[in-house]
Every structure is written in C-alpha cells, then in structure tokens.
C-alpha cells in the first residue's frame, strides 16, 4: 500500500514535470516585416526540434531597429534576443567594441561550410576576426528595367556604366532617365566597391584618400556627375527614395526606364510601388565598369545578430536554423524572395527555374546564379558611418555641379579624417 502511494507520487510528479515545459520567449527587432514573415512560416518546424520548450515570440518591427537597440542599451532597457542589424548600422556597434561586449560570435554556425558562403556577405558583419551577423540576402544588384522604353527608343540595354551614360545622353533629351541617384553614402560606396575601390581596408584603416582609391572614387564621382547632368540619373533625395511616390510615378509616366538595385529592392520597393505594371518589367545583368572591377554591386543587407543573455544559445540556434544550410537558403528565396548567399544553393532548380510573372515570366535565378560568386568584398570600420554621413552630405553638391568630383572626394576624406582624429 505504501509502495503504491510511492509510485503514485512519482507518477504524479512525472506527469507534472512533462507539463512543466520550460517556457521561453524569443524576441527580435527588425525594420523589415519580411524577416518576421519568414520566421513565422517556419516556427512549427523549429518547435518540433524542441519538444521540451514552450515558445512564445515577441517579434517587433521598428524603424531603424539598430539605432533603437543602441538607445535602449544606453537607457538600460530590455533588449531583444535577436537584432536585425542593417549593415549600415554595424559600424556604430563596432565603436567601443559594443558588438563584442553585448553580442555573441556566430562563427561556429558556418564553420563546416564557410567557403560555400559569399565572403563579402560575412566580412561586413565581422569584428576582430569574428562573425557577428548572419546575412539575409545576397544583395547583389541587377538592372530592373522596362523593356518597352528601350524598344520604343531603339536602344540597347547598356552593359557598362559608360554605355549607360552615353545612352542616357540620348534619352535624357526626351526626358527619360535610366537610373536613379540618391544622397546616401552607402549608395556611393556600392559603386566604388564595384569599381574595385575601398573606403576602409581589412584592418579598418581609412584608405579612401589613398592615391588608388582617390583616383577610383574620382572616376566614379565623375561618371555620376555627368550622368546626373545629362539626365541619365534622376536625382531622388532622402526618404523619397524609399517610401515616396516620386519613383513609382516616374515609372508610370515613362520618365524613368529602370534602376540598378539589389535583389531585396524588388519586393520591398519596386513591386509594391507599381503593382499595376506587373509583367512590364525585365531584369538584366548590372552595368560593369569598362575599367575593371566586380561584376555586380552590393547595397544594404541585414545581418541577424544575437544578444548575450539568457537565451543566447537558443537564439543562435534559431537564426542558424532559419538562415543557414541549403534548404533554409532555398526556402528563404521561395518565401520572401531573398536570394541565397550560399553559392551551392544556386544548383537548386527551385531557384534557377522559378519564373516570375512580374518580370514577364523571366527566370531571375539564372541571372543571380551568374553573380553570386562575384559579390565584392569590402570592410567595415567604426568610422564608416562618419564617412557615409560625410559622403551623403556632399552628394547633393556633386549632383548639382557645385562641387567637382575631386573636391567631393577630398572634402569627404577631410571630414572623415577629422572625425577619426577627434574620436567621434
């Protein structure tokens, strides 16, 4: 009888323990709801891997989530387990070694097949040789364009930047621009990186003003200035470039033929702005520089970083599960249209043979498969935001011709160097 009671107690305790799963809330901040959509689509799979844990999720969409994170850190507020850290925000996290003090390195997640991932998508989330962010998308650029405009005017889609500006000279007279220019330092850097220039070197030294880089930067700035002047590039400043109506309206009215933009731009900005023009678009390889350089340009990218804290291990596992490996990379493309940055993923027909009705049934994957191994590698520095602010501040002056390309490059160098010297 006593024994029976004993068993009963154990059975009771046991059943109690099964019910008392560990409860974990995973929290994440990001500026882009697509990532959240993607996570949500795979939560059942994830939970099946952890039957012992009862998950709840607190995923928040916050504009400039990375800046908010820093402010929350300064304010001593609760921080999310996962942060969608846009590459442009990464430099701020390098200052005073914040990334090292508050985040965990993710190198072991890619340890097994590191060479299969685009190096240029990891170098930008690295600090002191360690990886702190998992990239969301290849961010390689292509030329999105309206084929009808080219046909109507009897011109070819340009293969080089020089050709583009020459074609633009002609179409500019008819009030048709071929691409957009905006006042963002990161936008300028994307061109410079493609040309083979650099702002910071591997060790984080400021090399923008070096002889070689200065010459390349001047070459890029000269082409931009020329293109703005002859109407090849439509200047769209500030927020208008993203959420505004200028660009969609320009497309609709046939005053803008296309844009050289990264993969993510298609679903975030182009499609929503011109839903009514589905099927009238095509994608081509991006222009290259006749003087040499990489075959594509990269802009943007959001790396997921994992905060130190109680759930750091789980959060790390979570993001590794969501983003890494062949299947995850392919699913990420299928579900939210982010192209893989794992090179071998392009062997998968689910990527290369998908026909996109928005682009008249074109197989975009085929284009990206040609670009994946050509993503330029560039490096971050704590002072990169100083540089990009300086460049962004001075680009309008380059556009309106009140500054020569040389003066532009030298001024940006001077302002950045000054900030570095003062220790901002």
């Amino acid at each position, binding site marked *: 009888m006593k024994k029976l009671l004993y068993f009963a107690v154990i059975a009771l305790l046991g059943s109690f323990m099964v019910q008392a799963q560990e409860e974990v809330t995973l929290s994440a901040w990001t500026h882009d709801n697509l990532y959240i959509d993607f996570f949500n689509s795979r939560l059942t799979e994830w939970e099946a891997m952890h039957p012992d844990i009862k998950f709840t999720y607190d995923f928040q969409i916050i504009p400039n989530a990375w*800046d908010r994170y*820093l*402010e929350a*850190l*300064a304010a001593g507020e609760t921080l999310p387990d996962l942060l969608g850290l846009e590459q442009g925000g990464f430099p*701020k996290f390098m*200052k*005073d070694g*914040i990334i090292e003090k508050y985040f965990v390195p993710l190198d072991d997640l890619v340890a097994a097949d590191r060479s299969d991932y685009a190096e240029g998508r990891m170098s930008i989330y690295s600090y002191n040789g360690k990886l702190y962010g998992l990239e969301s998308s290849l961010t390689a650029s292509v030329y999105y364009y309206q084929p009808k405009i080219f046909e109507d005017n009897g011109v070819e889609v340009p293969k080089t930047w020089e050709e583009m500006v020459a074609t633009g000279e002609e179409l500019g007279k008819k009030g048709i621009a071929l691409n957009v220019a905006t*006042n963002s330092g990161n936008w300028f850097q994307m061109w410079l990186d493609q040309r083979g220039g650099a702002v910071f070197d591997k060790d984080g030294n400021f090399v923008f003003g070096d002889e070689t880089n200065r010459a390349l930067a001047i070459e890029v700035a000269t082409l931009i200035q020329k293109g703005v002047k002859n109407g090849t590039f*439509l*200047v769209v*400043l*500030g*927020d*208008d470039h993203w959420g*505004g*109506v*200028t660009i969609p*309206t*320009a497309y609709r009215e046939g*005053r803008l033929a296309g844009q050289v933009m990264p993969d993510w731009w298609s679903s975030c900005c182009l499609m929503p702005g011109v839903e009514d023009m589905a099927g009238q678009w095509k994608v081509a390889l991006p222009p290259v520089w006749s003087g040499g350089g990489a075959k594509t340009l990269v802009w943007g990218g959001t790396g997921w970083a994992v905060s130190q804290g109680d759930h750091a291990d789980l959060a790390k596992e979570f993001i590794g599960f969501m983003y890494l490996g062949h299947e995850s990379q392919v699913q990420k493309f299928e579900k939210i249209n982010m192209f893989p940055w794992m090179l071998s993923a392009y062997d998968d027909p689910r990527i290369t043979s998908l026909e996109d009705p928005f682009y008249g049934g074109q197989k975009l994957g085929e284009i990206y498969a040609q670009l994946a191994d050509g993503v330029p590698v560039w490096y971050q520095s704590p002072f990169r935001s100083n540089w990009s602010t300086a460049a*962004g*501040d*001075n*680009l*309008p*002056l380059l556009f*309106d011709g*009140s500054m020569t390309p040389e003066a532009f490059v030298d001024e940006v160098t001077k302002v950045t160097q*000054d900030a570095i010297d*003062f*220790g*901002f």
Partner: protein
Amino acid sequence: MASQNARALSVKTPRGRLRQDRYAPYFFISPFFILFTIFFLLPSLFAIGISFYKWKALGVPEFFGTRNFERLLKGDPIFWQAVKNTLFYAGSSLFIVAPLALLEALALNSKRLKFRTFWRAIYFAPIVTSTAAIAIVFRMLYNREFGFLNEFIMALGGMPVDWLGNRGIVKFSVMGVVLWRWTGLLAIYFLAGLQSIPDELYEAAAIDGATQRQRFFHITLPSLRPVMLFVAVIVSIGSIQIFDDPQILTQGGPANASLSVVQYLYTRGISDLLYGYASAVGVFLFVVIFILSMVQLRLFRGGDR
C-alpha cells in the same frame, strides 16, 4: 500691477492674514519647485558639467577640458552651417513672417472685411495643427517631379523648382511651412493689440483731419509697440529652437543646407550618442537664449518708460 492689487487686498483684511496657515502658500507652490529642481535645474547643471567631458553613451566619461567647445567653435563647419541656417530662419521669421502677421491682423480686424469670423477661423486653424502632419503634407506639395506646387507653376508656364533638393531654395521651403503654421499665432497677438487701442484715438484723429495712412503711422503702429516687441522676442527665441519642420521636411538636407542647431544637437546626442559634445551644443544654445532674454528684459523696461 497685479502684485500691488494683491497687497492692497491683504492690507484691507489684516485679520484674515493673521489666521491664515503660514505654510499653506509654500505647500501650494512647492510642486513647481520640486519638479523644476529634479527635471530642469539639476539636468541643466548636469548638461553644463558633461559638456566638459568626452562621453559616448556606452563608454565611460573622460574629462576633456574645453576641447568640445574648441572644436565646436573652431573646427566644426557643420555646426556653423547649422548656426547660419538657424539665423536665416530667425531672420526671415522676424522680417517676413512677423510683418505678414501684422498685415493679416490688420486685414482681419478691418470692419470693411466681409465674413470676418469665417476668415479668422481659416487663418487661425493652422496654429493648432501638428507640425509633423503638416510637414509631411508640404513634403508632397513640394515634390520636385510631381508635387502640386510644381505642376501649378508649370501649368502657368513656369519652370519647376527643386523645392527640397536645391540648397539655395530649401530654406525658403522650410520657411513656407513656418509661415503657414505660425502667422496665425502671431496675428492673434497683433489682433489683441489692435483691439486694445481705444476707438477715441482714431475718432479724435479723424476730427483733426488725419488721413488713413497718417492714422496708421501715428496711432496704430506706436500703440502696437509693446506687442511688436513681445512678438519679436517669442519669434526669435522660438525660431532659434526650430526642429520639427526641417527634421520632417528634409532631415536637414540636402548637404545640411536646412539643418538647424537643435537638429544638430539631436543628431549628435541622440543618434550618435555623443552626450558630451551634444551638451556643448546645448550650452551654446542656452547662452544665446539667455542673452536674448536679457535683451528682452531691457527692451520691455524701455517699453514701459
């Protein structure tokens, strides 16, 4: 005037004063002094203190002497650009917005205006609107390619203007919002001033055969002097602190051409988390406003005489 009034009353009723609770008034005014000390006075002293430190939000403050100020005053072209822009805002508020407000008040006060109440409502409504909302509306009206303003100009045969992208023009575009949003407010002050001028003055002048112009220059303007001084002060102090309009309209761009001092402080302090440096900007602002307030006191004293 008011304090004399109170004194007279309490002298009249000495018994009441004897019986009143001695501590009650201190109790009544104490919330202000407590809140002021905690949330304004101590933070002010703290701001002055940290302006002598190099302090990034997540780092440890490091004594920096006067280096923040040296850089601010001698080696920071963006700051000086912001100062120049802010002076432009203050100047055009004083010399364009305020006179227009006076004109508006004269018009809305005129007995020859039909539907006066209706027009007053139209002209005064903007002052209660949210600058954030209005700046976004203006941003669309100002759009270079397709904004209403440019389409309108082009319909009239003119050339489109790059309202927010041209460095020479953008400050005027910011002032456009300020003008729309603030003239009504200033006009209310002028209107109150106009209505306090006794009609007898005008009647007497009319009997003496003064023309309308003479009446305006010899009666209206001199009587409005205190109001004009008051408006000048609130306009100059207010426009030195301008933030919302350029922040939402242009984020200070292009190339910092519309950046105001407060925007610069916000960017350095809250976006870049450079607490020490931003506090130095704050101290600069404080000194300027303090001097203006002193001038104001002087002017008002002068005005009384």
